[in-house]
């Protein structure tokens, strides 16, 4: 019983982390029609920046949450630069844009290796959230519970943004039909920049929030990117609800698959993706067929 409960709570935590990563990926995919292969790198970059500011590599050490904020803003700015100065140069050429994002992911990986070296970087759990909750035989770290709360708060915030604001309405219009959105006077290219920056910031945020659990190491980008891809294909690109449901589903499949069928864990992970692609190519809650 303990085993099942532990796995269940853990699945939700991991799903929450995946949601933070995948939400931005999904929005970018939905709006710009390209899978942003830099997304894993942005996750890793956020984690490294956060670790640097929180770990006191510079002369001053920041509070963990301040470090989270700085890392998020820095990487969002980096995302803006990528969109405005690189992707913008290749309008409408989706294949070229995908290749550019792949190229940037290599550059970022080598940059991180150069700056932080090959050693894994440890990020301490914020002091207020160390320790664990004991409920009978069940042990659960506070920090993992906090990650769930953070993911839910982020989901709510994003939902309000997309569903209740003028900007959100414009983004939704851009996802549904970019040409028509242009016709009615929405500057879709400006939306591209905003969404890309938002997605980059979210990925970095996920990276640093995940760092106390996953630590930061070279190759983290390549470990996380496929998971984001699976979530988005499962949930449907451009849909917030899709990312949310997809993340939780993948969180469960990932945890239970590894625990029950360790030999088949990757197969179990990619199987639902395959089924969805065959039966419902736009994903469970997708707005368009890619």
């Amino acid at each position, binding site marked *: 019983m303990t085993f099942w409960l*532990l*796995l269940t709570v853990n699945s939700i935590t991991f799903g929450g982390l995946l949601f933070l990563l995948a939400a931005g990926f999904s929005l970018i995919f939905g709006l710009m029609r390209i899978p942003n292969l830099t997304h894993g790198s942005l996750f890793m970059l956020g984690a490294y920046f956060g670790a640097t500011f929180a770990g006191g590599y510079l002369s001053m050490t920041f509070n963990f949450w301040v470090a989270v904020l700085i890392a998020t803003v820095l990487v969002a700015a980096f995302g803006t630069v990528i969109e405005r100065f690189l992707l913008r140069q290749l309008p409408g050429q989706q294949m070229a844009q995908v290749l550019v994002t792949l190229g940037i992911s290599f550059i970022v990986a080598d940059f991180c290796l150069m700056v932080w070296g090959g050693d894994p970087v440890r990020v301490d759990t914020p002091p207020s959230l160390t320790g664990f909750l004991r409920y009978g035989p069940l042990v659960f770290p506070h920090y993992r519970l906090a990650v769930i709360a953070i993911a839910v708060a982020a989901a709510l915030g994003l939902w309000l943004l997309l569903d209740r604001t003028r900007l959100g309405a414009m983004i939704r219009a851009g996802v549904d039909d970019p040409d028509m959105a242009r016709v009615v006077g929405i500057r879709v290219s400006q939306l591209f920049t905003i969404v890309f920056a938002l997605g980059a910031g979210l990925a970095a945020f996920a990276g640093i929030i995940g760092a106390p659990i996953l630590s930061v*190491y070279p190759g983290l980008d390549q470990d996380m990117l496929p998971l984001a891809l699976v979530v988005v294909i499962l949930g449907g690109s451009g849909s917030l609800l899709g990312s949310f449901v997809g993340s939780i589903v993948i969180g469960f499949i990932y945890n239970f698959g590894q625990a029950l069928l360790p030999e088949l864990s990757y197969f179990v992970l990619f199987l639902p993706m395959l089924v969805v692609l065959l039966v419902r190519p736009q994903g469970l809650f997708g707005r368009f067929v890619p």
Partner: protein
Amino acid sequence: MSRKFTRRKFMAAAGAAAATFKFPMPAIAQGAPFKLGLLTVKTGGLAQGGIQMEQGVLTWLKEHGNNMAGRKVEFFSADTGGKPAGTKTKAQELIERDKVDVILGPLAAFELLAIDDYIEQHKTPTLSLAGADDLTQRRPNPYFLRPSACSSQAMHVMGHYAAKEMGKKKAITIDWDFAFGYEQEGGFQAAFEKDGGCVVKKLYTPLGTPDYTPYIAQIAGCDVVCQGFPGGVPLRFLKQYANFGVKFPLVTGETGGDDALLHSFGDEAVGQTSCCPYTLDLKTDGNQRFIKAILKDFKVVPGFYAAGLYVNCDVVEAGLKAASGTTANKEKFMAALKAVDLKDTPRGPIKFDHLGNVVGDFYVRVCEKRSDAPYGLKLWNKTVKTYKDVSQFWTWPEKEFLAHPVYSRDYPPVKKC
């Protein structure tokens, strides 16, 4: 201007080129440099160990004035990217273009397997710290030498120590789902069960698993856990292990408790017992000299990878000396390398068995918190027992050992107990 390139023009150009480049050659040929090649990984997930490997070689070269057995050394470093296909290409580049005399590396077992036949065809002596037990066991490669340890060597010692000295009875092992993982845990199981213990469960995780909690949740009903993760993974695993309040003591091999990780580990590593063919805690002159040199050159605290390659250089130099500085006869040079018997390398005394695997000392260490730890560390792997002259067959007779299949995912099988 005409772009036509006539035969006459070509002859003139070739003659001019020959005149410029060919003539001075004999004048400087009195001592051809010794060409040392390194296959390492400087990009991607395995880069942590790969960069340290290069640092080990560079430290050695600097300390010895770029000179090996009286010959100037020309050093070629190649980045394989940690992928077998890349390893093959780079090995070809080193052997056919750069014409190296010796190859150091590669890092990982699957990389080594990719060039196994190739180095034998070209008779290029290769000294690696990669695992892949069978290269010095059931399918020996005559041009391969392993001065570090085969995958199961340290784990044999650890299995024995866990059963005999720690008095443990039931173990669960957890490792990556690849050859190095199987061979490590197979070695642990064989030695642990030989001394009366019992492995009740073996867990294998996919390479590059970010979160180990689904596996940690399955750890119960044992009194010791053996992990053998490579690279930076132990850091993550130990933290997640501690976060879930799991209290079973941890034991591990050379990668899981590597000294190079000490500065990154937190308190959760305290109490972990590891067995390694190299330890910072070894107070011999050879080791202290090495640590001082690498600290000066790179400001890094060395671990198993850097020390391993430094020892490789020691072996190459000794072999070259014994072969009177010439590698012209490759069989002779290889025989000289195999006969090397050194007393004071950073890892202590080493020699080789007839299959080319090291016979040397293995150190069982316990990780402890120490306020006076040197090199700015907070944790220290303190040696609690040294096993002298450990062979790859542990205490089994060679014949009996080689009659078993190589350690794999299913061998030895998990028995009921």
